[in-house]
């Protein structure tokens, strides 16, 4: 949904995404995306453990800040990745981590 909403904006700054969005997504890539989601959810569940809902959200935010956001800051500084592209991908990670964190926090 995130990339469907922001796909046009991402296409402006990412030639690879613009090219890929003209074609039907390759099944193996979709499989990898799903596998990534499962891995991330499992790791968050393991690292965060049994905590309250609010703690789970805060810890998810910390994970995003320390790992995902810093990865994209590095990409902007050293690889000249456009701010818009980093913001779209970084935002996707924030939403993903907060959703997974809140589910882990509630479902225990």
């Amino acid at each position, binding site marked *: 949904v995130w990339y469907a909403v922001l796909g046009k904006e991402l296409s402006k700054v*990412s030639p*690879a*995404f613009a090219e*890929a969005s003209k074609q039907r997504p390759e099944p193996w*890539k979709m499989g*990898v*995306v799903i596998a*990534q989601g499962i*891995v*991330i959810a499992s*790791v968050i569940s*393991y*690292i965060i*453990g*049994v*905590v*309250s809902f*609010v*703690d789970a959200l*805060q*810890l998810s935010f*910390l*994970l995003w*800040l*320390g*790992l*995902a*956001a*810093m*990865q*994209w*800051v*590095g*990409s902007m*500084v*050293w*690889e000249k990745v456009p701010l818009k592209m980093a913001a779209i*991908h970084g935002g996707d*990670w924030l939403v993903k981590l907060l959703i997974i964190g809140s589910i882990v926090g509630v479902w225990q």
Partner: protein
Amino acid sequence: MSVIDNNRKLNYLAILVATIVAFVASALWYSVIFGKAYASLRGGAPVAPEPWQILVEFAKTLVVAYVVARFLMLFTLTGPSGSKAALSLTAWLWIFPVMILLGSILHENVPWGLGAIHAGDWLMKLLVMALILSIWRTETTAK
């Protein structure tokens, strides 16, 4: 008990030292160890970093060290401790940058070699930070 608002303080001196060591190790990683391969994969000759890039990188490393310290504290509250916790935590935390880099390789056409160099840098930095923070355990109880 909230693991966020527990009454333990972080060892900020250890965080600063972990930041400095990881920062220097990362600089060596991208210059002495993989400098040529990194420049080649980016399609150009090695370029000396600008001062503002070095400053941002240091700040970035500081944020990562702070987050590792927070999670190491949480980890040792709920699971293993010492170096075992550090190694275990490193492996788990490393999965996040690896997943991001994998996404860049798959969807943004970032070369595998470049992703591998960055992933190795993340692993080395996280390992260095977690080891320093776990060995230098002077978490004190707030009064």
